[in-house]
């Protein structure tokens, strides 16, 4: 980690370490300067850091380092937020949020002061249905942002929006973008260049598939980050990341769930393990518009035929427990149990026969190319073989799988089954948002469409009664399961190993990293 001086021992250690990481140039050069460097693993290639289009947590980590929002999640044990660009944010009525902003906070690159114009621009572009942004549901109830002064405004909602304070304003979709910079350059969708900075760090190097180096933003007026540079090193393979960590080439890395048991028995030297319940959710999905899975009896046969406990045992080495839906325990809308709790192979075979597949059929399971997913897929394939379904495992990079699942030319038909893990924010609407009809071709890979589900998603985001929300979200998961297109697998855990010389600042589920709050321990 940080404070590395260039020495023969360090050189040898680097040369002996994981080749993937050791080939990244500049590490030794930077260390020569005596800078404090934090080296963290990035588990997927960066494709976009646009808040409206982001792909995952890794994009989120970068976005929150280079820009600010009105408010931000506070790292720690509970889901709280704190003011960032705002000096005051007040919910005056269920549909009216007034905000005042700090004065004199500047964009880098000579793009002037951060004003309410930027706020209006940033939120309305996501909400605008014409832009068809993947995260438009985060702002689906936004009517408009009214500018009442250079540094003040009012967020007007069409209806009360409960996720606003948990999943929208303090998260990625609440970040404020540089309006002038984007407009002057004619850019409507940000890829990997933030154009102008307002956050604690700025990008020094951006090689999206290899290495992202963040350095302190000299214009940052907040608390000075402890680390001069963040090296976000792309290591797709979890095993390679563990080896790189053990070789001293990473200061921290998330771990596959299957590694937890082993590390709990024997930790690497001078390291700490963080294991937190995850809000994320894994499931086996079936696209329900083409091929055998178009028939609900086939989908139900998979639901009855799959031995989920065996799959979890095989893929996660007994560490993960079965989930009952897409909403984790402790959150509003968590279901106490699944509708189908135990496998019933005889019933599954009956359903397949009734659907015209007495001898089963061949299909593909699409998964991300990592050991956890591939193991899970192989276990699913083994389980489905018991009812005659022969499933081959097809592996993808994350972006490639999404591109196939959303392909407008119909390539989504090539993937009958898929195992997916989605990350999650603490409001339940953030789980259901991806399965509404509007998300078909984006994140709704099952092509699940249910008017009641869509209606509930719309109404529950405005529902102020917590009990009604709880019942509503449970009902939505019932509808998902009743469609046959889903077998809920697990929420898993988020596991992370880090040097004991680093005091990390993480979101309560240990998924997100707040690098400007990291400290040397």
């Amino acid at each position: 980690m940080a404070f590395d001086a260039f020495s023969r021992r360090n050189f040898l250690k680097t040369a002996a370490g994981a080749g993937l990481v050791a080939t990244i140039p500049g590490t030794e050069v930077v260390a020569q300067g005596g800078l404090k460097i934090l080296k963290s693993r990035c588990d997927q290639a960066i494709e976009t850091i646009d808040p409206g289009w982001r792909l995952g947590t890794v994009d989120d980590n970068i976005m929150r380092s280079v820009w600010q929002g009105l408010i931000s999640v506070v790292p720690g044990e509970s889901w709280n937020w704190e003011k960032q660009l705002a000096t005051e944010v007040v919910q005056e009525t269920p549909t009216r949020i007034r905000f005042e902003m700090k004065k004199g906070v500047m964009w880098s690159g000579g793009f002037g002061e951060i004003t309410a114009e930027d706020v209006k621009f940033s939120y309305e572009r996501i909400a605008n249905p014409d832009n068809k942004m993947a995260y438009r549901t985060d702002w689906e109830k936004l009517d408009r942002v009214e500018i009442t002064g250079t540094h003040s405004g009012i967020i007007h909602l069409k209806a009360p929006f409960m996720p606003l304070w948990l999943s929208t304003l303090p998260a990625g979709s609440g970040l404020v973008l540089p309006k002038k910079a984007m407009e002057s350059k004619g850019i409507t969708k940000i890829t990997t260049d933030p154009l102008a900075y307002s956050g604690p760090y700025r990008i020094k190097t951006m090689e999206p598939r290899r290495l992202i180096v963040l350095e302190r933003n000299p214009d940052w007026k907040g608390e000075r980050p402890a680390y001069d540079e963040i090296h976000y090193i792309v290591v797709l393979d979890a095993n390679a990341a563990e080896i790189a960590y053990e070789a001293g080439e990473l200061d921290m890395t998330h771990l596959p769930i299957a590694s937890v048991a082993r590390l709990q028995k024997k930790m690497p030297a001078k390291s700490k393990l963080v294991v937190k319940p995850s809000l994320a959710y894994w499931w086996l999905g079936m696209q329900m518009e083409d091929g055998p899975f178009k028939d609900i009896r086939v989908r139900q046969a998979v639901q009855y035929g799959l031995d989920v406990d065996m799959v979890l045992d095989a893929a996660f080495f007994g560490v993960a427990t079965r989930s009952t839906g897409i909403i984790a325990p402790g959150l509003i809308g968590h279901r106490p149990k699944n509708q189908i709790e135990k496998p019933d192979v005889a019933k599954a075979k009956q359903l397949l026969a009734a659907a015209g597949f007495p001898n089963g059929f061949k299909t593909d399971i699409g998964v991300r190319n990592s050991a956890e997913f591939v193991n899970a897929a192989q276990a699913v394939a083994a389980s489905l073989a018991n009812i005659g379904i022969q499933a081959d495992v097809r592996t993808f990079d994350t972006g490639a799988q999404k591109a196939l699942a959303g392909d407008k030319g119909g390539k989504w038909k090539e993937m009958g089954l898929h195992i997916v893990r989605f990350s999650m924010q603490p409001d339940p609407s953030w789980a259901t948002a991806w399965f509404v009809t509007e998300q078909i071709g984006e994140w709704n890979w099952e092509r699940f469409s249910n008017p009641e589900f869509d209606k509930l998603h719309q109404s529950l985001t405005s529902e102020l009664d917590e009990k009604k929300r709880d019942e509503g979200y449970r009902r939505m998961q019932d509808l998902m399961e009743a469609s046959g297109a889903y077998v809920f697998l697990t929420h898993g855990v988020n596991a992370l190993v880090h040097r004991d010389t680093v005091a990390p600042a993480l979101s309560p589920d240990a998924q997100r990293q707040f690098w400007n709050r990291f400290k040397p321990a």
Partner: protein
Amino acid sequence: MGFIIVVLLVISALGADFLATHDPFRMAPRQRMLDPSAEHWLGTDQLGRDVYSRVIYGGRIALWVSLTAVSLSLIGGLILGMLAGYGPRWLDNLLVLVFDAVRSFPTIMFALAMVTLLGPSIPTIITVIVVASIPVYGRIVRIQTLSMKETEFVLAERALGAGPVRILFSHILPNVIGPLLILASMEIPVVITIEAGLSFLGLGVRPPTPTWGSILQDGYQYIRDTPWLVIAGGLPLILTTLGFTFLGEALRDAFDPKLNRH
């Protein structure tokens, strides 16, 4: 030595159904990563599958892919090489250009591009290897054909009215097939390595089908839990490569007249 190894490989591949002690697909998660024992001769993998049985079945895949790919390459290279060597000048130039164009791509890069385009599967792997290998055989056959077609017995045959098909298949083919078979035997381990490499990268034969490459990949993933998976995946690859290489060298030593002179 090479011959013995190859014979053993062929026997194990053909007799996999009898030699395997377990179903190579059967999972027993609670018995994951066991060390070798009387019950599991090479231990079990991360999903509790019997590694010995997977290695045996993996050999069948390796042999099938390599023999199919090499045979098709050999036939393709033979036909195109003879056409280039015996046909008109424009056809020769065209085919040489195509051979050079294909050979200009590193095989593994070419394979990665094709697999990305067509999706990973056994037919894709075979296609990739065949396309990449045909020029190797084609160039050798072309040179042999060019030198043979000016020999006196071919000229005499032509003067007697023999057509090109008869000359190619009755006179030239028997003279070029020998070196080609030697080359083919030495190409088999290369093909096996390519297949294993693609499977290791997750771009080869799809899981859960057992291949040596995928066993190696599993071994790599769990090397800190057990070394047996890497050994089980790596050893047959090493032995097979050595076996075919020794066999190829032995064939070359036996049939190459230039070497015999020395």
